[in-house]
């Protein structure tokens, strides 16, 4: 074996060792981030219902394995005694859990988007994935500017547009506006 080959192997071993070490390192203790701007919790309920219906079915984000974990009537229930669609509307505990799920995805980016009143909502991965401009296993869910997108972006901008949320739900659910889940939003 030549000296050059030995040198090459040492370099590879060193690179692998560095990679292994960096993978085990913990973030610095002062690296915590406190969110400076939180989206509105009061008007989040219709947004939560929309997210659960469009994203949180039992085979998608309505499973505990997903990092955006969603609870609600149309999918995974929070209470062990509840069943999908029984009770028909999302519970306050589920809405609270969904709020925490969304907050925890990208805290820094979310704070920036909320502080700017959603001037650039596509800074958020969840917005880009739903719009289909970033790779998403579930594909494109809605289009920028349609009712569902407006529901989410309006919430990020300050207060959710409940009518847009209801329209977004009615556009996709069987029975349209007569669907029980739409009635949960339009007649809370």
């Amino acid at each position, binding site marked *: 074996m030549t000296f050059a080959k030995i040198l090459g192997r040492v370099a590879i071993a060193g690179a692998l060792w560095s990679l292994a070490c960096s993978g085990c390192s913990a973030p610095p203790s002062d690296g915590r981030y406190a969110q400076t701007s939180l989206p509105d919790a009061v008007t989040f309920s219709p947004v939560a219902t929309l997210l659960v219906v469009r994203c949180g079915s039992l*085979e998608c984000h309505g499973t505990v394995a997903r990092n955006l974990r969603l609870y609600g009537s149309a999918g995974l229930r929070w209470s062990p005694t509840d069943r999908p669609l029984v009770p028909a509307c999302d519970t306050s505990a589920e809405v609270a859990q969904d709020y925490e799920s969304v907050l925890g995805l990208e805290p820094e980016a979310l704070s920036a988007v909320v502080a700017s009143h959603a001037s650039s909502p596509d800074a958020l991965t969840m917005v880009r994935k739903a719009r289909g401009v970033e790779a998403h296993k*579930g594909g494109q869910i809605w289009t920028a500017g349609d009712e569902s997108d407006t529901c989410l972006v309006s919430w990020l901008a300050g207060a959710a547009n409940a009518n847009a949320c209801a329209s977004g739900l009615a556009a996709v659910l069987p029975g349209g506006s007569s669907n029980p889940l739409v009635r949960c939003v339009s007649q809370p």
Partner: protein
Amino acid sequence: MSPTTFTAAHVAELVALAALASVAACDPVRADAINALGPEAPGVRRGPLHRPGQPCLYCHDGALGDPQRFTIAGTVFETPSATFAAAGVVVSLVDAKGSAIDLRTNAAGNFYTTPGQYDPTFPIQATIQAGSQVVRMQTLIEGNGTVEPNGACATCHFDPAGPSSPGHVSMALDDGGTPP
């Protein structure tokens, strides 16, 4: 490449690639899920009447050596609390592009469709009908599962019913009412 240059090293490379391909094709998650289903029920042969209520597409996925691929498949039972088959139920499916199909459950309550019959674009809306009784699924079938492909109703509709499952698909509630 001419035959005269085909050396033992090339053969070894091909063997290694074949071994890699076979390992890649082996999905332990799917294998565990299939093993958990257990054996065939006594007296029931493999065919249209077997394994009612189980997630058909675990096996009917079109993989090499597996049975025929289904795009959508499931079972309809009479009520939530019992597993009596609901035969002759019409299962109506409409996909995201408006493509529709009506299927009919067999004596085991099973229904299924192949890619040649119906290759839908998810999400799908589903309705089941027996006589004048109509049950409309209130949510959409998105087709994304931990074990894919996922046009199998039983992937979500499994027993017992709980926070993560509505229970098996049924035509009526135990009191005769219509499921939500």
